[in-house]
């Protein structure tokens, strides 16, 4: 019997991959504007994390947010519509690529100021603790974000108050063009968490099940009252930081090395070789995902632009 959860995980990863490839195309065609940060190569991280969370757990991340958006369960129609700035987008066309959120799914966004969402995660967890709710806040950020004050202030405070937060550093090895070796006093990021006295682990972020398992274990302990914990997931960004990155900071060979052993290929191999899944079954899933994205583009293409009056809506709750 094929493990259904595994096929689901596979589906999520390829759905993200197809979404991102299409997003790049739409950007080239001028249908997506602004900044576009692709998640290609990092699919195992958010997919593994979200596979382990309970629906009541909060998730918050940075601007490289399409993966989490998919994994959190936002319909791809609304994701693509947001990319295209349509009224039917998850943020009504106001946020764009960097600002997707769906609070009905406890996904608190996509945030574009590096590290700014980290103290906000502290606050989400504070409210849960004060209200005695059994939820953990999962806060994701890049390794580059661990160099900004927000990180140190937010993580320290959460530790002082023993809040239910799981910090996840997605180390894709570059913050724009800067590697941690050139920007962080310790390139082993978990040392920073150790500095604040919390349990810290690293995991191969290209292995979706390893990510899922370590996150599940950490969430369990946090629920039991351990206070904050920290996971560094080592991964790699296959594409430029955003569109139009000259990529002078890394060699083609380096990229190739990671691409050849990418997270989707690895999981696919595992499913075929260890789980006995038919290749054909995986191809079908792949095809389904591609189809969903095609339909989402059609949906977004046919969706209306926001009305002019919308410009002034939601500035305040009370007008």
């Amino acid at each position, binding site marked *: 019997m094929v493990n259904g959860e595994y096929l689901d995980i596979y589906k999520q990863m390829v759905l993200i991959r197809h979404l991102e490839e299409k997003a790049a195309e739409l950007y080239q065609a001028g249908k997506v504007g*602004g900044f576009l940060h692709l998640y290609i190569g990092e699919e195992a991280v958010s997919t593994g994390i979200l596979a382990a969370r309970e629906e009541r757990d909060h998730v918050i991340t940075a601007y490289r947010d399409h993966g989490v958006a998919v994994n959190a369960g936002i319909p791809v129609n609304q994701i693509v519509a947001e990319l295209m700035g349509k009224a039917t987008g998850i*943020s009504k*066309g106001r946020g*764009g690529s960097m600002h997707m959120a769906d609070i009905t799914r406890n996904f608190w966004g996509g945030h574009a100021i590096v590290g700014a969402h980290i103290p906000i995660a502290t606050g989400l967890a504070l409210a849960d603790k004060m209200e005695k709710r059994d939820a953990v806040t999962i806060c994701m950020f890049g390794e580059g974000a661990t160099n900004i004050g927000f990180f140190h202030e937010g993580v320290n405070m959460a530790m002082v108050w023993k809040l239910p937060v799981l910090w996840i550093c997605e180390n894709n090895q570059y913050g724009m063009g800067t590697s941690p070796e050139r920007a962080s006093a310790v390139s082993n990021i978990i040392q920073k968490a150790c500095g604040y006295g919390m349990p810290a682990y690293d995991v191969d972020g290209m292995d979706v099940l390893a990510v899922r398992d370590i996150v599940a274990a950490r969430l369990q302990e946090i629920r039991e009252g351990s206070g904050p914990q920290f996971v560094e997931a080592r991964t790699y960004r296959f594409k430029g930081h955003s569109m139009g990155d000259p990529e002078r900071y890394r060699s083609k060979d380096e990229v190739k090395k990671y691409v050849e052993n990418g997270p989707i290929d690895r999981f696919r191999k595992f499913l075929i070789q260890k789980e006995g899944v038919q290749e054909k079954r995986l191809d079908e899933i792949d095809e389904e995902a591609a189809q969903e994205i095609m339909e989402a583009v059609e949906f977004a293409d046919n969706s209306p632009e926001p009305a002019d009056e919308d*410009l002034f809506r939601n500035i305040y709750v009370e007008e």
Partner: protein
Amino acid sequence: MAIITMREAISQAIWEEMERDEKVFIMGEEVGVWGGTYAVTKGFLDHFGEERVRDTPIAESAIVGSAIGAALNGLRPIAELMTINFAFVAMDQIVNQAAKLHYMFGGQMVLPLVIRAPSGGGRQLGATHSQTPDVIFAHFPGLKVVAPGTPADAKGLLKSAIRSDDPILFIENATLYQMRGEVPEGEYTIPIGKSTVQRVGKDVTIVTYSKMVKYCLDAAEQLAKDGIEVEIVDLRSLRPLDMGPVITSFKKTNRAVIVEESWLSYGIGAEVSTRIYEEAFDYVDTPIQRVAQKEVPLPYNRHLEQLALPQIADIIQAVKEVLR
């Protein structure tokens, strides 16, 4: 005169000053290996080396703070903020430190510091990345705020800023980097704190700065076809604010429109129009008009964003309004 882009003008100014004075150095996110997010420092790392072209961690507060320290201790740093939106992360260092230290310690401390930051909206970057908060920084005595609207001014003013012993926020508009304009050959500087007339006219005075200079020049071309001659005064520096050319022009035209990219409330228009009323009330023929951004955080959607931003048509309409 050579015709070059704003990007080249800014780049040349930094390059020439780094060649002239070895105490000048540049630091910021991606200024080195990447060559600058807006390619302003392309080629700098190879030429000047990593001591003087310093890639920093993502740490705006420490970028500005350490630049202040280095300036106090004898160097002449240029701190680059990737965009002015990230200046809020460094707000204490800019406002409570850079703007205060010289005065608060009785003039002992001197900080020859330039903070460069691209500003402006219109690129669908969403609410946090599209602001034009220039005027906020001009609120603080002790800090100078310079914001050129042409390549020639950018080069001359930036060279002066680097040579100045005061802390200066040098604001570049991110959509102007490709703008071309005539720039004098060879060595030249433009004094900081002097407004200038960018177009001569007799009917209406437009006061503006930075990106909106170009918008106003375009509006003026169109208005000229209807026989309306506007005079455009470019402030170039928001603090100090040089009202001289504004008042001279206003006494001639008796009508004014103030144009800025940012929000209307508490803006440049409020300040400049009040000063006109204070200094030239007897010359006022009609209420001064202001053109500015609608009072909303900027949305991502292209159409809505443009709806919120001031347009050339808004300027033309305001000019016609003061002529009614």
